């Protein structure tokens, strides 16, 4: 008791802080620490299933990691492809979702409808509803396929190639044209992947104090200035959140996870699968660290 009185303010603050995160801390120790240890254990060993049930582990050193990166048929290529996809997609998604959030934050007729529409990809994107659609589709294609409207390829009637050639002849650098084509080709994916980010940005826009805009107006700031000096700094912490979410989301949807999952549950090679998960998790964490470092420097926090 006597000791408690002597505690400095910082210690007391630290203890209060720890009580805030206490439930989570317990949970992490209960569920995740064990998982991580087990995953690391698996990744360094050959996991053998006993016929009597249960598993036996033989230490295998770095063999699993070597196999995953150097010998496995597709893993390293899939890994590189996914990383490149992330680098291309994430800036697009962030730009697109911020723009959409700004548009949706205005008052206009049909706003509720538009917000509902942009929310649909969040519902349909993953999980049970997506599963239901996919399984039914596979069954149709695997069975005596009928050419129903859904599967008939739409012919747009516009020859993209023709326009591309015109641009090339006009002297546009090939790399730029390629990138633009790439981007346009991804628009559907970008829209589908932006639902969550739009909602987060909308919430961020909502929590900007209105007084700041009043001040800006009184000071005679143009709307352009208001955006860059008020809106943008105020939502910048949430840009980081969205970057993190986009990266993680792109990664969980990617073939990397699929490959590791297949290795674990089709060929029952837990060791290799764990090594793959560790490699990809480490890489993503590194990307997040870099992205976080870059954005945090620009982001605006009150403290």
């Amino acid at each position, binding site marked *: 008791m006597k000791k408690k009185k002597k505690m400095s303010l910082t210690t007391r603050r630290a203890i209060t802080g720890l009580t805030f995160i206490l*439930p989570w801390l317990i949970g992490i120790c209960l569920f995740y620490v064990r998982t991580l240890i087990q995953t690391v254990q698996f990744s360094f060993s050959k996991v053998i299933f006993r016929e009597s049930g249960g598993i036996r582990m033989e230490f295998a050193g770095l063999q699993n990691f070597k196999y995953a990166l150097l010998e496995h048929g597709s893993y390293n290529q899939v890994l590189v492809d996914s990383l490149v996809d992330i680098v291309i997609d994430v800036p697009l998604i962030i730009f697109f979702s911020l723009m959409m959030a700004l548009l949706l934050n205005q008052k206009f007729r049909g706003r509720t409808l538009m917000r509902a529409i942009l929310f649909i990809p969040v519902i349909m994107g993953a999980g049970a509803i997506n599963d239901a659609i996919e399984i039914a589709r596979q069954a149709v294609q695997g069975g005596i396929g009928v050419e129903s409207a859904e599967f008939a390829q739409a012919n747009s009637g516009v020859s993209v190639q023709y326009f591309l050639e015109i641009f090339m002849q006009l002297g546009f650098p090939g790399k730029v044209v390629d990138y633009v084509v790439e981007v346009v080709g991804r628009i559907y994916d970008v829209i589908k992947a932006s639902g969550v980010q739009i909602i987060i940005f909308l919430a961020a826009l909502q929590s900007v104090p209105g007084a700041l805009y009043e001040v800006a107006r009184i000071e005679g700031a143009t709307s352009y200035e208001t955006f860059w000096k008020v809106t943008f700094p105020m939502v910048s912490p949430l840009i980081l959140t969205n970057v993190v979410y986009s990266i993680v989301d792109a990664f969980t949807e990617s073939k990397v996870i699929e490959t590791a999952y297949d290795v674990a549950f089709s060929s029952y090679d837990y060791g290799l699968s764990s090594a793959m998960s560790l490699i990809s998790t480490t890489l993503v964490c590194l990307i997040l660290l870099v992205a976080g470092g870059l954005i945090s420097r620009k982001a605006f926090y009150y403290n």
Partner: protein
Amino acid sequence: MRKHANAEGRKLRLVKASKKWLFVLFRLAVFAGITYTILGPLVTIVSRSFFSTDDLYNPLVYLFPKSGTLERYTHVMGTLNYGKVLVKTLVYDLLLMLIQLFICSMTGYGFARFSFPFKKILFGMVIVTIVLPSYAVMLPLYQTFIDFGGMNLLSTHIPMYIMTFFGCGLRSGLYIYIFNQFFRGLPKEFEEAAYIDGAGAWYTYFRIMVPNAVPSILTVAVFSLVWQYNDVFFARLFVYGGDNAMSIKLSSLQATISYVDKVMDPAEVSLYVDAGVVLGILPILLIYVVLQRYFMEGVERSGIVG
């Protein structure tokens, strides 16, 4: 002189008005394109859910069924046990959502405003829980709950409640991160004023911070609800059989219709699945439309149009 000034003023107004109209047009074009991309597949699903078997094989039928039927819906409602399962699922998801909000906002606040030893490492753990693929936790979780202090908790909802309460539920890491960023973006003056007035940390948190974080709370509430509703991973891992989870029922709909109800033609089965998908999306979409009214009182001052 005055005439000249008038002309200038008119010109300015004209420029301003045309700018505004251009912007409205731009917005319309963007929205039209997006609506088309998103609703395209959904429209097909909705229209097919009304198809009769004749419509399915009639090449003249496109989107609008000739001999439309509600049979798909009545059948699927029976198969899914829709009313009962929906209520059960929503109650379960709402409870989990409340726990998520409480625990994750607390944790997020703890990380945002306090400094304690190993904070960086612990926050790194939050990130790891977001990034770590969910199947990697599968085996240990299964082992934990099949023998939880001598009890087998599988096939009940209890494991999910326990995990959510300890901040390890479905995507809890992400919610913690969202709350953390939100709280860091709030001005410190509020809390300092409260501290000076002698309020404790908990009082300040509940009375000052939470009311200011309503937008983020609603955001997380929506995500938590949708993802929990849609979740197949944990539902399968903890084996919710029978009528316990809409997600399991929906994702196994194809199999149920073709093997239990003996509809042999996979194309016809897909019509039933389409009806099921519509039934699955509707309640969640409705909840979102109602909720979004609360958190989106528009701010027209965000500065992209004059």
